[in-house]
């Protein structure tokens, strides 16, 4: 675990329960997320998948059970080794694109002023610009988030999170509010980032198609007892754990050269590709 850089991080969730007062939200969750996995959490709304992500984020502590990353118990506080992108409000409206991406570096490099100056600022700006170009936002560096489309804001949020080189990237329905076409574009970006960056990704989504398009493993949350009188005393647990076959491996091309929503390539449609209609996304 130690050799090969600190980036390889296994997340072990051991018999985790989460209760709010009398309300049991999650019960008996045990799960091992292998390094470099891309896990999609799916399930009906209100089944606790976002609560589970918050536990991973450290925003909430489990009522029972433990979560460890690389064998180290999780601190119940968000920290820079776990990046996050929410569906909304992930970027800071008062900072430009460049300022948003720089912020993490400035927190890191300057404890009191939280601002970098001189050559350190220039190095940081260079790094930020590379990342901005990486997510396809070059030329928009001086714009404020309100001037960007929803898709661009989520790209910005990704760049902003990735500049901290987190071991784990947590995504809370990050593309849920985007148009189908824009969502397909950002899926391509997300896949590339996952291949190229040493990242373990955990994504909450309610879109099964998105889950199967991106993930190496799809995990379903469900309430086994969901009658109204049972709802309070029984929480959700894991009901399905599906590994995608053939396996997707980070950094390796998928055996089917084309994933369903990769950009059209001139080699003609594959077996399970959608009909090549411009911009069409059949759910």
């Amino acid at each position: 675990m130690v050799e090969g850089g600190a980036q390889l991080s296994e997340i072990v969730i051991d018999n985790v329960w989460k209760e709010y007062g009398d309300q049991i939200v999650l019960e008996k969750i045990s799960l091992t997320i292998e390094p470099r996995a891309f896990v999609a959490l799916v399930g009906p709304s209100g089944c606790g998948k976002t609560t589970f992500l918050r536990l991973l984020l450290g925003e909430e502590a489990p009522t029972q059970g433990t979560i460890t990353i690389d064998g180290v118990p999780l601190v119940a506080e968000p920290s820079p080794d776990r990046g996050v992108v929410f569906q909304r409000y992930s970027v800071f409206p008062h900072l430009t694109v460049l300022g948003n991406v720089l912020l993490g570096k400035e927190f890191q490099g300057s404890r009191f002023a939280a601002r970098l100056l001189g050559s350190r600022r220039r190095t940081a700006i260079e790094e930020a610009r590379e990342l901005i170009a990486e997510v396809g936002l070059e030329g928009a560096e001086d714009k404020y988030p309100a001037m960007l489309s929803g898709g661009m804001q989520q790209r910005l949020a990704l760049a902003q999170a990735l500049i901290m080189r987190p071991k784990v990237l947590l995504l809370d329905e990050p593309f849920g509010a985007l148009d189908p076409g824009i969502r397909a574009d950002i899926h391509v970006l997300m896949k590339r980032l996952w291949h190229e960056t040493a990242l373990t990704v955990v994504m909450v989504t309610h879109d099964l198609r998105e889950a199967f398009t991106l993930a190496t493993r799809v995990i379903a949350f469900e309430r086994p007892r969901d009658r109204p009188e049972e709802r309070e005393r029984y929480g959700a647990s894991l009901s399905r754990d599906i590994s995608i076959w053939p396996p997707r491996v980070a950094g390796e091309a998928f055996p089917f050269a084309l994933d369903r929503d990769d950009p059209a390539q001139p080699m003609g449609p594959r077996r399970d590709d959608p009909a090549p209609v411009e911009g069409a996304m059949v759910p």
Partner: protein
Amino acid sequence: MRWINIRLSRTAALTLALLPFGLLVAAYLTGSAARLALNPDDKLLPSLTSIADAINRMAFIPDGRTGDVLLWSDTFASLSRLGWGLAISTLIALLVGMIVGMLPTARSLLAPVIAVIAMVPPLALLPILFILLGLGETAKVALIAIGVAPTMIRDLALKVTELPREQIVKAETLGGSSWQIAIRVVLPQVLPRLITCLRLQLGPAWLFLIAAEAISSDAGLGYRIFLVRRYLSMDVIFPYVAWITLLAVLMNLALDGVRVAVFPWSKAVRN
């Protein structure tokens, strides 16, 4: 077409906006002319010429006794009290508001006491202030600060708690400490609100200023109005009230201009 769907052109809107002002002036002029026709010595609604006379006397000719031009020395005295009072309360509001808004511990400690203090009618405190701080400038500045600060603190703390939880969590995942998040994430986002809040408090601040000046002062716009009231000098009172209104309107516009100029992003994200 329904009334709710009727949109006006710019000129029509401007004309409508000016209409009430025109009506007010016209009503005054007719009233004044009617009263003066009955009694040329009437003091309640003086004619435009006597008002112009008074303006000339107050704003351009030095006072025989002190050698000051009264309007300007009054304006200076009032504005410096107002400025100090607002500056102090803004500073307190920013500091306490952010602490109360950000730290749950501070919220538990301070929010209830601030809520109670905000309910104390500041004018009822004025005698206490005069007794404790004397009749000088300190008591007047303190009245403005005490009158305005609690509301500003509560407004600002509310604004801080209204920041999306996601933003704060995101800042934490970027490695920000409480202090760093305060100065880089929270502070810049509440500053525009602080300015708006200051604008909204201009009215109460003027009220407390005039009240304090009316009771004990030797210069100031409020002092002058209450002084000349003894001689029924409406020709002085009307221009003074208009001047105070103009000052308040200009301050309001200037503050909003500052907000848009300094925080260009705050225009897009309307709050």
